[in-house]
């Protein structure tokens, strides 16, 4: 896809870092089910942990598109790195930078942006996944703040993280999305704990676990944004988070295509490289086309974020399309590699397992379709100057 030179230069720099610093460790990160802290420190030094934090708070102040390109490039070599970095930047740092007051920004952003502290967020609960407005975590007014009790699940960076933005119901009489507020919670507060790591299909190096809050006292100053705005803020965060999952899906797909194309040129069958057969050529063509289309959707949504435009539909479309495309591409990459694709000898086996999360996390594909269809159904009244509406009434 056409991009201004500065973006291509930017990508080259990130790719160099990813291939040098991350790629050699990707298989081990997956196998050990552990994200190495020293790698996070190295990323912190390069500014990759404060990408969406303004420079004045110690961040790198990247454009949103640059942030997404970074998630893409990291995911191209290691999905676990992609999700770890996306959760920290997009879900951990971004809500504080976007909705926090001056005091909160000064207190938290420099530490998270430098990577001194890893951050994340908590929305999903065991009984509130796709239906996340059904939050059963409650915050009760206490002297000088709130007492919060509840359980959050599928929390990325749950054990590594020290700062968590999470939602709780502050109006006990409310149901659904209203009456939910957001809080900045620190590990180490009494009653806060994280559970044992989930045993996942893929992204095994990324740290996913429960968060338990048992009557955790949270001072009033850590309420994020106005009371009752939590759900709205988190939905806005998810809109941008979804673009990052799109970037991740895109990176995994690109990585799989790169491996498969290289393999197809090297691998011989019936006396010729398999890349000389049409069955393989068409697979590669379809894979590349799906990737290109994904990149357009994902980058377009990212640019809209940079312009401050409403992007609910575009973010959902980018995530939906890119994750399904990534499923197709990683699947075909395995097919091109045959038995080698199913074994741990080549990275496509890992990429396929990693990819599957993209269709689930931060809103399943089913949820994206609900979001998109809702947007499509809005504002059809004036269709064809009202002629169709007239016929229908």
């Amino acid at each position, binding site marked *: 896809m056409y991009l201004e030179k500065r973006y291509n230069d930017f990508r080259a720099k990130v790719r160099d870092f990813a291939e040098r610093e991350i790629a050699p460790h990707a298989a081990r990160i997956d196998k050990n089910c552990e994200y190495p802290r020293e790698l996070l420190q190295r990323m912190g030094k390069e500014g990759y942990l404060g990408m969406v934090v303004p420079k004045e708070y110690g961040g790198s102040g990247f454009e949103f598109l640059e942030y997404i390109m970074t998630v893409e490039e990291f995911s191209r070599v290691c999905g676990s790195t992609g999700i770890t970095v996306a959760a920290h930047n997009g879900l951990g740092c971004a809500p504080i930078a976007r909705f926090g007051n001056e005091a909160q920004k000064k207190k938290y952003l420099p530490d998270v942006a430098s990577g001194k502290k890893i951050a994340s967020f908590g929305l999903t609960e065991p009984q509130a996944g796709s239906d996340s407005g059904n939050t059963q975590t409650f915050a009760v007014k206490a002297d000088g703040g709130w007492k919060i009790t509840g359980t959050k699940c599928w929390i990325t960076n749950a054990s590594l993280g020290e700062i968590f933005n999470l939602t709780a119901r502050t109006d006990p009489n409310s149901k659904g999305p209203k009456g939910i507020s957001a809080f900045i919670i620190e590990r180490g507060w009494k009653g806060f704990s994280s559970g044992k790591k989930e045993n996942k299909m893929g992204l095994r190096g990324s740290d996913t676990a429960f968060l338990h809050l048992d009557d955790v006292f949270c001072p009033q100053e850590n309420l994020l944004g106005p009371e009752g705005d939590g759900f709205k803020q988190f939905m806005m965060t998810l809109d941008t988070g979804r673009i990052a999952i799109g970037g991740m899906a895109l990176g995994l797909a690109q990585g799989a295509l790169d491996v498969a194309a290289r393999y197809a040129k090297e691998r*011989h*069958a019936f006396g010729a490289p398999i890349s000389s057969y049409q069955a393989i050529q068409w697979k590669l063509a379809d894979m590349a086309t799906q990737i290109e289309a994904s990149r357009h959707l994902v980058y377009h949504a990212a640019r809209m974020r940079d312009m401050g435009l409403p992007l609910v539909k575009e973010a959902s479309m980018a995530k939906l399309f890119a994750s399904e495309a990534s499923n197709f591409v990683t699947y075909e990459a395995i097919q091109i590699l045959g038995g080698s694709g199913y074994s741990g000898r080549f990275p496509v086996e890992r990429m396929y*397992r990693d990819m599957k*999360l993209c269709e689930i*996390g931060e809103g399943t594909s089913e949820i994206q379709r609900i979001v998109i269809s809702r947007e499509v159904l809005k504002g059809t009244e004036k269709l064809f100057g009202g002629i169709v509406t007239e016929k229908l009434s």
Partner: protein
Amino acid sequence: MDFELNEQQQLMRDSAREFAQKRLAFFAREWDETEEMPKSVLAEMAELGYFGMLLPEQYGGLGLDPLSYILALEEISKANAAVEITLSVHNSLACQAIVKYGTEEQKKKYLPRMAKGELIGAYSLSEPDAGTDAGGLKATAVKKGNTFIVNGTKNWVTNAGLAGIFVCFVKTRPDLGREGISALLVEKGAKGFAVGENEEKMGLKCSDTREIYFSDAEVPIGNLLGQEGQGLKIAFSLLNIGRVGVGAQALGIAEAAFEEALKYSKQRTAFGQPIANFQATQFKLADMSTKIEAARMLVYKAALLCENGGNSAADVSMAKVYASEMANWVTNEAVQIHGGYGYVKEYAVERYFRDARVTEIYEGTSEAQKIVISRSILKKG
């Protein structure tokens, strides 16, 4: 067309289902994690005759018709797909090799012990540089007195770590290319023969897959299977029932995933009601069920054709490619219905998704099946 199973077929399906659900399903997750299939379960299956399903009774086998056999494999796969492939390779590829092409002496020597599961069989065609293009294999066997001296490396050998007997395809006349391939029965202890480490795979993790190595290995002349130069024909003819077996495996995995998804969709509530109440879920279930049924028809038909001897390779390939693509589609949807839970090992669909993936790869990739199918169509046209 008769859609009824006969008495023996029903009996085999029901008894396999009962055994598999009782003895295999419960442990599937544990064995996936430990990447080991306990010897005791192999012994138990041997006792019940699962290692001699297709073998004639005179050699101690159950003498099943192909459809009964396929029904049993489907039920076993539904409980544990890794166990299924262990049995499928032994029965379809190793035992059948000797039944169909062995001399009376070879049959007497190996089959009774294979039927009892004392001797487990493996089949070895692929090589690191020859997969779909099996005719391009490089392993050689040169006659020296009463012995073949074998050299080369073969890979993706299912059961390699368990097997006592390997049906291996090697070039006895490299100068003749595909026509110079022969089948050899290689015993585990043969001098110069070695078995590698268990592969790390995405799924079927408790099944055994390894490379095998021949380094001036010595195999008696008497262990030539069939005629010299007949190897590739033997290899492909065995793959017929083998591929129907992979189709049955795919079918079993898909059925298991469908059942889990159906159960979950009734239990899981969102927006105040079970997700099975939502049309998006309902249509997914409808599509899953329809595709499973279509695959079942293709797989059973291919099995019946194997029995009547009238099987065409294209029928078998169609069953295999459709069932395996279907299984990947169905397990993908089953994971989607489970959401985050589908991505973790506490839920069986996570494993089904990984296990299903290989059905499009081994015993001929989908691409290899399409070569077979398209060739057959173009020949007729």
